[in-house]
């Protein structure tokens, strides 16, 4: 272990670290610890916390509504992750292949990402609103009755689409960088070999881009579980009849609508563990299949 003496004293380096440490402690570690603690208590407004052991977790184990929310979340995350990666990859490829106006296409793909999630949700609401949406007419012309205020599966699709649409920009930024890093001669060899279009994307680019893609899978998974709250809240509020009641929204409801802080904390601990395990599995898989250049 080599140590580099950059700072004159430990105090100086400590002081520089302090703001970050302070913010992390106050807004990350302390709430986390508190959430874990609260998950073992019966806690609500106007009453003292009462230690109940694993009772909150037992409640979750026996709550069928929670089970379906869990399943729904996993399904939602899968749809969003696969959707984001697939759509972003295809768009990136198109942008990569185009000769003129690349910058313009890139900007138009990235802009939804620049919106705050709540604004993004509202914008999307007006794109596919059952009566007012600009795309509602064209979609209905295809023979689909747009009625996602009442139709559960449709609501699920709409929230997933919104989540995908919002996250494409972020993915494209990374993917275009990775794709531009593929040596030009490989593209030219493929051209000479007659490997064209999507086959070039799938057989040549994607394998070389795997490190970036796996990184994006992980980021998108976290996004799908945690950062899609605004879409559910503003588009469907978990409805109709819990069709879009994913874990992050469910635990918010539990905590801030029903004020069951104990159960809500238990739910957030479960969500935290679930995503943690998923990350672990993904990292293991990543190491095995990624190609990290020569």
């Amino acid at each position, binding site marked *: 272990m080599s140590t580099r003496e950059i700072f004159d004293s430990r105090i100086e380096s400590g002081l520089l670290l302090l703001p970050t440490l302070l913010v992390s402690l106050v807004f990350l570690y302390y709430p986390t610890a508190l959430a874990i603690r609260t998950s073992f208590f019966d806690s609500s407004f106007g009453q003292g916390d009462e230690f109940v052991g694993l009772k909150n977790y037992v409640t979750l184990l026996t709550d069928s509504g929670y089970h379906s929310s869990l399943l729904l979340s996993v399904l939602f995350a899968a749809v969003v992750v696969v959707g984001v990666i697939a759509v972003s990859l295809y768009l990136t490829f198109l942008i990569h292949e185009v000769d003129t106006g690349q910058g313009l296409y890139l900007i138009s793909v990235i802009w939804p990402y620049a919106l705050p999630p709540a604004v993004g949700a509202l914008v999307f609401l007006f794109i596919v609103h059952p009566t007012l949406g600009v795309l509602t007419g064209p979609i209905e012309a295809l023979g689909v009755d747009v009625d996602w205020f009442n139709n559960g599966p449709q609501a699920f699709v709409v929230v997933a689409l919104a989540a995908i649409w919002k996250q494409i920009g972020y993915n494209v930024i990374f993917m275009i960088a990775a794709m531009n890093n593929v*040596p030009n*001669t*490989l593209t*030219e*060899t*493929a*051209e*000479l*070999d*007659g*490997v*064209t279009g999507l*086959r070039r994307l799938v*057989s*040549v680019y994607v*394998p*070389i881009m795997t490190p970036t893609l796996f990184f994006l899978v992980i980021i998108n998974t976290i996004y799908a579980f945690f950062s899609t709250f605004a879409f559910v809240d503003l588009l469907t509020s978990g409805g109709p009849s819990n069709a879009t009641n994913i874990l992050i929204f469910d635990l918010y409801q539990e905590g801030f609508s029903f004020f069951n802080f104990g159960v809500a904390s238990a739910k957030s601990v479960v969500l935290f563990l679930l995503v943690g395990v998923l990350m672990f599995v993904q990292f293991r898989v990543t190491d095995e299949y990624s*190609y990290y*250049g*020569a």
Partner: protein
Amino acid sequence: MTTVTLQNLHKEFGDVVAVNGIDLEINHGEFLVIVGPSGCGKSTTLRLLAGLESTTDGRIEMGGRDVTTVEPKDRNVAMVFQNYALYPHMTGRRNITFGMKSSGDFTDEEIDRRVTEAADTLDIADLLDRKPDAMSGGERQRVALGRAIVRDPDAFLMDEPLSNLDAKLRIQMRAELARLHSTLETTTVYVTHDQTEAMTLGERVVVMNDGQIMQVDEPQVLYDFPENRFVAEFIGDPAMNMIPVDVKDGRAIHETFDIPLPSGNGQPKSNQNGAGDAQITDGQRAILGIRPEDLHLSDPQTNDELPTIDAEVNVREPLGDSLLLHCSIGNTSCNIQAEPRMPITAGETVSVTYDPARLHLFDAETGEAFYHSELRQSTDEQAPSKLTT
């Protein structure tokens, strides 16, 4: 028959003219080397041939077929790149077969047979199951060659394929490429900036500069009868000495020497306006070209009739097999390749003779050669030089 013809080929990148009117015919089965300094347009020419760049103007024919606007994959050419361009995530075998499998023109048995054949030819059977990461530079280039030959293309296009290899391996691969070409006899266009590669590999060598062809000839002809100053100075290491002289009465006159120009000599190829009989006029300013190895230290023992030239030695560079002397003749600097182990020190003035059969004169302004002291033995119809006095 895959004769490749380039007609008035132009390529511009914005304001930059990369290729500026190239006319060239590459014969069936020929190994043609394009050589030139960086940025001379040699790689662009190759890429135009491959179809990786579109032409600004001009025409490319392969085997009589106009391929100017044909897609790269439909030209049936294979390209070998300087950086090998192997797919890093595929094994050697996958790399070789990937293109064939994609084209769908080959059955699996056919592909297997060809891979085995190519692996034998290139001695890469043990590399087929390895990924490029686990291969050395030479091995990667061999696999890249394998990928090129399995498709049995009409032409190989090689873009500095040996430039990333170390010196020893380069020499070895050079010999292997020559052997490969004599086995396969496929039309090959090979681009390099290395004149040794150009001279050793090329059946004919194209020297390019500033997007134009300076000369196309067999390597030895290129060396012995450069058509202009550029070729004279580019081909040969150390480069040909260029000494400004006045030409008068069949003699080349310099401030420090005055040597006769042998008559009955060869005239270089006609210059561009077709005037093959560019005559030497009296008092004309010219550049005398003499290669360093054609200058000898004069031996006072032998009673040489040749006039001698006095040169002051500035730097001596023992190269092992020869001794390179950086000298000044008057105000002109000049290199002499002398016998090794000569006891000559810097600052000394030496007396130098020359090989009278190996003198060249270039126009002081255009740089075109208008006189070679030896008759060029070639099939070209050329008017013999008239050295008028």
